[in-house]
């Protein structure tokens, strides 16, 4: 056994040395033969750009497709990819010009029609695409996707093809940062084969990205290979990626340790304590575009009457975020100090400490504020959440403990656990909550607008607390009309300050994305959506 151990160490040393030279050598081309073996979960829905709204299918789309824009994994900025330029004079009518030379892997040219057809398909109600709402601000969406009843048009009137490389988009209303949303996967172009042989396309998706699908066995694995004909700037740095389905992330982690897997992008909670010892610096843990909060039912007078903002703020100050994120999540959550996410970066609108004192743990002031505000309604507070996933029960108990300790009046804070997410969602969407409830928000694109408008604007699509504030709505609408990005962000942040004042939702923490990898691969990074940037991974 001793001899075998020595051999193992020798192999390790050699492979590390090889990896080092591979990193050092600047001439290493993109046609490396190495295959990255990565963990995967079976996507619920077929892999279609406008239908995939979860991370597992998103991994494939990110490899197989390139859209008009792409978010830089480092800076988070939306950079032109297939688009040459997107022009507007009035923040409502946009002219999109494509670069020439882009093709799909089946040889078909990427034209303006490839985009317009794909978007019209994604928006149409009959196609039952989950991401349809992403097209909702294009003019004519109401006709192809009415609130109820049948569609009255086949295509959206706001999309017009001018020539092979140009099309125009008219929006319902001014939305200055609309081009920045185009990095989302729902907006990628589709080849004609998607419409002609839909079943065949689903079995083997064809796109314009750096990888092609070699084989797809539903429920078990997908093999992707680097596409030699790819002309884009981000050619694959490895030979391909094998996505292997694991139903349990612990199993994937075991396989990573046994050397049967190169990359896991979801380190299981119970391994977090070992991860440093197991992987050393082959592990990343960084904030994602996920914001966790507790929302108050503003439709309930007991929580909305004047003076209650002090109680809501007081509850926020009674929560020891620092301790809970460390004890329960081992640092895989970052305490929140605003209503966005650090993954946005400063330029995108993230501002550390915007929430101010109201999000800082201060049990004495918390108690005083709650008393000033008239005390908890009925002398108690009950937090509601589904408890089937995500250690929700654990942190809710911890939050309640924290509040109970701060108030010192016994167990005034209790948890109302709901068995399943589906049931919880029914109660939430039916506005049946009687106390604060959990809210998790994963942004669709790295824009501050996406963290604020849908959640807190009047009539917002996910405004489950029914928070209504005229000043907030006005600032959001002004920000959307602003042509200068910095000015728009400043307006959004002004709106955010109203949240700090009114506290309709208590910021808890930002959720992190994590990944661990074997010593056979290097240059692993996660993008804002916590998806590994596969094309940059190098295999030694």
């Amino acid at each position, binding site marked *: 056994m001793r001899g075998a151990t020595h051999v193992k160490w020798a192999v390790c040393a050699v492979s590390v040395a090889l990896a080092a030279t591979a990193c050092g050598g600047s001439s290493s081309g993109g046609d490396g033969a190495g295959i990255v073996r990565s963990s995967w979960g079976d996507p619920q829905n077929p892999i279609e750009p406008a239908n995939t709204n979860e991370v597992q299918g998103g991994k494939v789309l990110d490899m197989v497709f390139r859209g008009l824009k792409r978010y830089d994994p480092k800076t988070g900025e939306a950079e032109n990819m297939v688009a040459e330029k997107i022009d507007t004079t009035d923040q409502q009518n946009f002219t999109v010009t494509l670069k020439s030379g882009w093709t799909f892997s089946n040889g078909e040219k990427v034209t303006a029609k490839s985009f317009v057809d794909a978007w019209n398909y994604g928006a149409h109600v009959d196609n039952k695409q989950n991401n349809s709402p992403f097209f909702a601000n294009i003019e004519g969406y109401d006709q192809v996707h009415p609130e109820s009843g049948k569609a009255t048009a086949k295509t959206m009137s706001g999309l017009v093809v001018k020539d092979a490389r140009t099309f125009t988009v008219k929006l319902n209303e001014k939305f200055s940062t609309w081009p920045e949303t185009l990095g989302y996967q729902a907006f990628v172009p589709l080849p004609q084969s998607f419409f002609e042989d839909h079943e065949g396309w689903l079995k083997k998706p064809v796109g314009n990205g750096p990888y092609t699908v070699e084989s797809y066995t539903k429920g078990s694995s997908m093999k992707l290979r680097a596409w030699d004909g790819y002309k884009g700037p981000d050619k694959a740095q490895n030979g391909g990626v094998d996505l292997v389905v694991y139903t349990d992330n612990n199993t994937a982690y075991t396989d990573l340790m046994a050397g049967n897997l190169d990359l896991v992008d979801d380190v299981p909670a119970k391994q977090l304590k070992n991860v440093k010892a197991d992987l050393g610096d082959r592990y990343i843990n960084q904030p994602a575009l996920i914001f966790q909060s507790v929302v108050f039912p503003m439709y309930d007078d007991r929580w909305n009457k004047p003076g209650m903002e002090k109680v809501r703020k007081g509850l926020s100050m009674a929560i020891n975020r620092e301790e809970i994120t460390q004890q329960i999540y081992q640092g895989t959550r970052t305490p929140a100090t605003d209503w966005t996410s650090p993954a946005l970066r400063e330029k995108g609108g993230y501002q550390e400490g915007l929430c101010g004192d109201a999000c800082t743990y201060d049990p004495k002031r918390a108690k005083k504020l709650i008393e000033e505000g008239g005390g908890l309604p009925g002398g108690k507070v009950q937090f509601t959440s589904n408890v089937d996933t995500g250690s929700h029960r654990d942190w809710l108990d911890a939050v309640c403990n924290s509040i109970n300790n701060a108030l010192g009046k016994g167990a005034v804070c209790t948890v109302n656990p709901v068995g399943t997410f*589906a049931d919880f*969602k029914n109660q939430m969407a039916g506005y049946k909550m009687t106390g604060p409830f959990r809210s998790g*928000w994963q942004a669709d694109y790295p824009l501050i607008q996406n963290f604020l408008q849908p959640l807190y604007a009047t009539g917002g699509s996910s405004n489950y607390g029914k928070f209504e504030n005229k000043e907030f709505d006005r600032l959001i609408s002004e920000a959307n009309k602003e042509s200068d990005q910095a000015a728009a962000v400043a307006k959004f942040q002004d709106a955010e300050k109203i949240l700090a004042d009114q506290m309709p939702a208590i910021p808890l923490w930002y959720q992190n994305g994590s990944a661990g990898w074997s010593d056979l691969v290097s240059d692993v990074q996660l993008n804002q959506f916590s998806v590994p940037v596969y094309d940059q991974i190098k295999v030694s």
Partner: protein
Amino acid sequence: MGRYVARRLLQMIPVFIGTTLLIFLMVNVLPGDPVAALWGDKPPDPAQMAIIRKDLGLDLPLWQQYLNYLGGLLQGDFGTTIAGNRPVLDQMTDAFPVSIRLGLMAFTFELVLGLFFGVLAGVKRGKVIDTGVTVFTLMVISIPVFVLGLVSQQVFGTQLGWVSPNVKDSMDMAQLVLPAIVLGSLSLAYVARLTRTSIAENARADYMRTAVAKGLPQRRIVSMHLLRNSLIPVVTYLGTDIGALMAGAVVTEGIFNVQGVGQLLFEALARREGSIIVGIVTVFVLIYLLANLLVDLLYAVLDPRIRYA
């Protein structure tokens, strides 16, 4: 005999309809809306929900949904999933071959080794080997299957490296060996214990003394007289176990990443995919019913005194 089988097969029809109805109703009273859950944390789109409901017939009254389902079932149509709009039959034909392989391998393992240990202990009752088997089986029975699974995965997979710790290709029999052993080990212990008790009891029977007095060789006495007469309780147990091995493999399949029926059922429950749940359970009901019939028929083969008219 033929009439007996026919009667039993006909009896299956009401049992089959009753169980499917029961499960269909139970899935429908679960709280929450699987169609709305398609949107995750995002707000569902009412127009699209209406179209999905209409396409899948979920907007009809419950009794009509059930009749439609039953009608489809008779034509071999198990319905369509809500998420992904895939035929349920597709998913079942992906998962069942895996579980059947795993189940049969576990079954063979428990049958061969269980009978072997049981006969050994029963014949040599009171000796060291008997005590050994009893202690060993007691140990296996008292260890929960997930402990056994995780420990053997760690020892044989990660540390000794004899097998791959997880199953990469669920259709590869070689990779299924370890999961099958873990899955079958509990039943193995029961089979061994049942066989031992039954053998020990029958060893004192009159026909055994006759066989020995006739001067038959030991090997023939044990295999043809003793074992055959002692098998009835074991066969009863094995019959119900066939179904349990396939249906109850959720934990083992999870530990070893086997993409079988257990995993499919577990996920379907989490997502509230009624059509998958009812479909799988329906097949399980059929398997149980047929296994039971087979057991009853085997009784007559093992013991000629039992006759069916």
